[in-house]
């Protein structure tokens, strides 16, 4: 994908449509359904993650160019670290008799 393609920008179109759909879906879930607050938050959160991935791959081209692989590794590693730090800390500090009450 490193060479510039002059064909129709399908990627952009699909990304654009998907982004709009996901946003509309989120609005729908939030305003038009009777799910509890927690469920709504989880659903919207999940949609947001997909949205972010679409942005990264379809518009920000993280897999392209000489450093594509590096960018992907970098992002995965950052997410991994964030998860370890947050959930690791919660786990460590709430188990056993050292737990925060």
């Amino acid at each position, binding site marked *: 994908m490193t060479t510039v393609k002059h064909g129709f920008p399908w990627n952009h179109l699909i990304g654009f449509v998907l982004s709009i759909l996901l946003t509309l879906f989120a609005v729908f879930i939030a305003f038009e359904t009777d799910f509890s607050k927690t469920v709504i938050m989880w659903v919207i959160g999940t949609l947001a993650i997909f949205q972010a991935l679409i942005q990264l791959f379809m518009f920000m081209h993280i897999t392209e160019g000489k450093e594509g692989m590096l960018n992907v590794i970098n992002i995965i590693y950052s997410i991994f670290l964030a998860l370890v730090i947050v959930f690791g800390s919660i*786990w*460590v500090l709430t188990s*056993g008799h050292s737990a925060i009450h």
Partner: protein
Amino acid sequence: MSLDEFFVTGDPLILASQIAIGLTMIGLIALVTYLKRWKWLWSEWFTTVDHKKIGIMYILAGVLMFFRGGVDGLMMKAQTSRPNLEFLDAQHYDEIFTTHGVIMILFMAMPMLIGIMNVVIPLQIGARDVAFPKLNALSFWLFFVAAMLFNVSFVIGGSPDAGWTSYFPLAGKEFTPGVGNNYYAIALQIAGIGTLATGINFIVTIVKMRAPGMTWMKMPMFTWTSLVTSIIIVAAFPIFTVALAYMTLDRLFGTHFFTVAAGGDPMLWLNLFWLWGHPEVYIVVLPAFGMFSEVIATFARKNLYGYKSMVFSVVGIAFLSMLVWVHHFYTMGNSASVNTVFSLTTMMIAIPTGVKIFNWLFTLRKGRIEFSNAMLWSLAFIPCFTIGGVTGVMLAMAAADYQYHNTMFLVAHFHYVLIPGVVFAVFAGLYYWWPKMFGFKLSEKIGKWHFWLFVIGFNLTFMPMFFVGLDGMSRRMYTYSEGLGWEGWLGFSAVGSIVMAAGFAALCYNIYWSFRYAPRDIGNDPWNARTLEWATATPAPHYNFAKIPEVTRLDPYWDMKKKGETGLKKSDLKPVHMPSNSWTPIFLGVAFGVVGFFLVFEWFTLAIISSIGIIIGLVANSFDYDEGYHIPVEELEEEERAWRGDLK
């Protein structure tokens, strides 16, 4: 606050140091003025953005800090050499082990390694400088100012005294109301900004600026370990930044992140501290591994055995290093599952580390070993570090750690890791790259004294600590009574520390002697080395390479020498673009130092006013449109002829 609260008073030892510091400062200022060297200092060193000079300043500061931290160590050893001594009181002992630990790790190990990285990495990858030279200078000045701020604590205001780990609740305002622990919070914050910037700088440098042809798997081992260290810095230091910020808020503004009362949780500090603190251990030890790899390959006259497995084990260590932090507080009362998981991850680190040890041994096997000083340090490292590693696996077992935790056994363990793993490496690196910095070798003969005294002294000092630890002596004990069976071990250990100090003195003498008398005509490749830093003049010219080398395989310089391709064609010379010196890094460093000092004393009005200095520095930096300058071809030609003879 009255003046005698400001200055620490009432202790003859400290009074003597105050006077000594004052006199030394006056002496230095007088000396520079007398020699008319102010302008030279300013334009050649204080404002430089040259990675080699910045590296040398780091190393110089590191040696000074090693001296300071070492004196702390000797004082502790003197105090515990006999039972019931009253050389230091409890408070003083607390302050000394705290400053010793902080200084050794953050102001000795870090700058020494970052200094050597600075000198070597751009040369080793065939680049002309780091990616952001000015940022690099800023990193140095932030570190330096932070180190000075931390060091004045013992004469002005009082030293921190809650250990290098500064655990809460002890490190909170309730239990340590003085300014001592403010110094810890503020100085380490400032140093941390510099370190983070260094990490980013070196990642970009190594990823973006390698010579053409140097693919990932053709990178020298030291470059690899420096890259991985930089990545761990960027991953781990922000955690410390946050933890220190909470600590500062707690101490200065009465918040309750870590307090016992009002919903705070002291264990949160431990958790965050070690989330940074364990990776920090790998930050200092990985570059050291890289240096040993270079030295061992060079002096065994072989390429490094198992290069690929070396790379994978470094990456593996980096990955695991973020997953083991709880092994520092198994005893805080976690559930069994937490302790089990962290026991396992900890023991897993021994695997890639073991791989590396075996690779070094196999590199040595059937090599034509030359026992130069750099090589001696590398050889001594292997068994000493293995003792540290094996006792580490003992400590990794959570159940057993309930016995070892916070005893002298632990203190012996981490000194067996840190001294061979960092200090021996720094010595090996200094002997090896000294010519690259200064154009002459350190004396091999005096170096042997340095080596034997230090290695023997080190083992004499720390081996007994394992045994007193197993006999029940806990760490950070300032005295003990007779009849516990410890005096013999501890007396022995104190004598050992004097032998080690003699080793350090031999190093200082070696530096002095070699500056005066060592031969200067050593050529550009005094060790018959393998990597690119030796493909240019020794000491390296300020532009590093007249023509950027091209790399076709691992150990490129070795290859070039075999093929006879080390020459330089006149037609290859083009003007070289160089960055200009800048006053903003040192200015910003000092500005941060001043604000930091006022924050330590909680003089907020002054702190706010003086933070204008930081803003001025940043603004001035943004409006600095200097594009650097070019070195003309004629000048390159002249400099290259000076050491190559005629060009082709």
